[in-house]
């Protein structure tokens, strides 16, 4: 801030003749602001606590794993990338559930959406940009610990040629996972405008359903009816992630082994669900704009 002097000069109203940014820059500004807000940056001190606490909890075990690998001198990670994410599944989901309302409920609840929509950005682009911010925030959340595992593992002497393709495949799956979680949690938050409702509903949709799916898969595996387990996996982003991680060797383990065309079916379902969430989000914001 400029240094204050004792006198305030009233210079009258000044117009603005400078450049005005195009639609792309507007969307980029909104995207970056949204990404920062998802981590509480640029907001009150209190709103930074939860995201960074969760991020800390998600990262600490990866540091410990790297420490163990270094000290004992293992020749592979005891918990590889996708398997690690499965272990911190609860933290990732909580982060998505808690931060989605920041991006999707706030503007609707306080009606500041009206001010956005009275500006050049069309409602559809607004919704998609918000989703991209949340998906990126979730990706950062999952990428940070897995990247630490990867770099730490390499520094501890793991084979680069073996680890790199596994890590890259895990990153690709993380992209898919982030897109799905952001779509589902975002859609829920844009409908349930009270933060508490949105968080609880997202947790039910993501954590409770994932738990039920896991139970069904365990039972199916125990009873030897693979088909039921494979179908059940379609209903949870986490089961999808784990199933694909095992099938495509992204360092993951799954209760159910996907056979034949199932991996493709999983990928296809995930993409369709993601697209459906986006379409509903866009519809929601277009409708709000005309009210």
């Amino acid at each position, binding site marked *: 801030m400029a240094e204050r002097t004792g006198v305030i000069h009233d210079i009258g109203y000044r117009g*603005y003749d*400078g450049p005005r940014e195009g639609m792309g820059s*507007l969307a980029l500004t909104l995207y970056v602001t949204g990404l920062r807000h998802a981590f509480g940056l640029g*907001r009150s001190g209190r709103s930074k606590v939860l995201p960074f606490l969760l991020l800390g909890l998600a990262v600490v075990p990866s540091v410990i794993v790297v420490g163990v690998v270094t000290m004992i001198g293992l020749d592979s990670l005891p918990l590889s990338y996708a398997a690690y994410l499965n272990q911190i599944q609860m933290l990732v989901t909580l982060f998505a559930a808690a931060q989605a309302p920041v991006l999707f409920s706030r503007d609707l609840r306080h009606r500041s959406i009206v001010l956005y929509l009275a*500006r050049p950005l069309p409602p559809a682009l607004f919704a998609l940009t918000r989703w991209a911010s949340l998906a990126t925030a979730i990706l950062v959340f999952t990428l940070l610990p897995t990247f630490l595992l990867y770099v730490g593992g390499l520094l501890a002497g793991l084979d680069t040629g073996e680890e790199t393709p596994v890590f890259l495949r895990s990153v690709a799956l993380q992209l898919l996972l982030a897109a799905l979680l952001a779509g589902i949690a975002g859609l829920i938050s844009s409908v349930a405008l009270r933060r508490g409702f949105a968080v609880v509903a997202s947790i039910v949709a993501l954590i409770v359903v994932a738990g039920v799916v896991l139970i069904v898969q365990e039972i199916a595996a125990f009873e030897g009816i693979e088909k039921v387990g494979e179908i059940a996996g379609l209903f949870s982003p986490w089961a999808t992630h784990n199933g694909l991680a095992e099938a495509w060797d992204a360092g993951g383990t799954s209760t159910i082994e996907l056979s034949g065309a199932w991996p493709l079916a999983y990928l296809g379902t995930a993409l369709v669900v993601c697209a459906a969430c986006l379409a509903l989000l866009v519809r929601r914001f277009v409708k709000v*704009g*005309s009210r």
Partner: protein
Amino acid sequence: MIDTSGITMRFGTVEALTALDISVGDGVTGLVGANGAGKSTLIKILLGLLEPTSGTAQVLGHDIATESAEIRRLVGYMPEHDCLPPDVSASDFVVHMARMSGLPATAARERAADTLRHVGLDEERYRQMGGYSTGMKQRAKLAQALVHDPSLVFLDEPTNGLDPAARIDMLQLVQRIGRDFGIAVLVTSHLLGELEKVSDHVIVLDGGKLLRSSATSDFTEHTGGLLVEVLGGDAERDAFGEALARTGLSCRPRGQLVAVDPPPQHLSLHALVRDTAADLGLGLVRIQPDQAHLEDVFLTDGVLHG
């Protein structure tokens, strides 16, 4: 600035606007009407947020159906309802809104500081808006509407919820925007008296129909009558009024003043007032022309058309 032709808006069976043809020029234009007359609906249509059932409109030379993004780049909008997030400071929020209108980062910061000063938010601008009074919130809302230096602003009920002093401040600000800032203003209100003070032109809506559109001076033109104040209290005022009445004029008390209706034939009203006062030995304090008020015109027009 704005030209509409045959704008009709139907929500289900309710017709909110009926074949509206209006045109708005420079300066301050008041859009008057009771609650539910269609003022906010019209603004939303002009912003391209609502699609009219039929009819076309041009804002700043751009068609609302095809170039609404361009319109939204050039206009500012202050909504009627609360629309401020409580956990952000006015300063941060206005900067962000400036950026969302396409201003580069540095310009956005400079203009946000400037605009907040113009609307009268100084030190408070660094506080979170959740703790603001209604007056401060209205100022913050106004600042975000002006921050990108629009060519036209829509102010939807800017005096809503303000106390009388804040109301006057806000109206002066609206007038300054139209006259000193050189930004055309379309300001709505359901209070007619407010707008006659600040607007150059008034459009009256009633039940979604155009009741009247003309310059404010036409509404408030001189009626030919006079307002006279004499020294003393109610007794002197009444004595003076009765004396005037005896000369054949019709007059009545209005507050401390005596309102004299326009004389029937062209007799010298001022001379008569002077002589009457002199005869009674009363001191004249002031004589001023009596003006019609927007309410009068609106009410008579309303009766005629309604």
